[in-house]
């Protein structure tokens, strides 16, 4: 045991973080927090990429998580710009109150 950690632990940690992200996505009302929950899920996925990369002794997983980061950056830029616009127009960040397109 002192030598190392089973690989599955990393994966389970990733699953837990992913589940926390999902929970945040479902139960939180603030758009920004919801957005951050998505980032948490992306991070959890990145962890699996890195873990499998270690397991397979290939660097490709790192590349994937690198791309995930870059895309997350792009997404954050656009998403936060949208949030800013929403706030400017509606004076609210609560996701339930932005519902004029409903039905």
């Amino acid at each position, binding site marked *: 045991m002192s030598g190392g950690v089973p690989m*599955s632990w990393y994966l389970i940690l990733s699953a837990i973080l992913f589940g926390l992200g999902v*929970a945040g996505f479902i139960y939180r009302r603030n758009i920004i927090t919801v957005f951050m929950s998505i980032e948490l899920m992306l991070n959890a996925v990145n962890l699996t990429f890195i873990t499998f990369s270690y397991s397979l002794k290939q660097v490709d997983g790192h590349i994937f998580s690198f791309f995930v980061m870059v895309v997350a950056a792009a997404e954050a830029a656009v998403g936060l710009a949208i949030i800013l616009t929403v706030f400017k127009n509606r004076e609210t960040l609560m996701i339930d109150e932005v519902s004029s397109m409903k039905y």
Partner: protein
Amino acid sequence: MTALIFFIFAGIAVFCGISLVAQTHPIASALSLIGVMGSLAILYLQLGGEFIAAAQVIVYAGAIMVLFVFVIMLLNAGAEGTSLNVSQFAKYAGIVLLAAFLGLISFIIQATLPKTESVVFGAWDGGTAADVGRKLFTSYLLPFEVTSVLILIALVGAVVLARKEI
């Protein structure tokens, strides 16, 4: 040593993750997320991904989350109210489903992966900046270039969206 570090930082990550979901104030959530990212960076280091660990801190914690914090501060977003206006389905099914999801996935991971494989710090160091760079600029050159275009598009889109007159 590896196990100790893993437990410490996995613990921090899970704690911060819970905090992200449980805190009512967005700033607190954002800081928790930064905590998750930091501890994940340490775990990446353990898994031999030194470049990706640095990138995690620079890009995620240092740039993306700064944007989040910045926006939260700019909008002066306060704590959300306690009333959970969650849809009926999500409210009741969510917890059960999440529990089932976690249980199942842990079960499958445990059942599928070979038990003997374990992570030892320093056992594989193929994730240096040189390795990642070599792969990125040879095998993944096209995706890399496409990503740069994506970033440009996002940049333009963000500028257009955030302009005063819209």
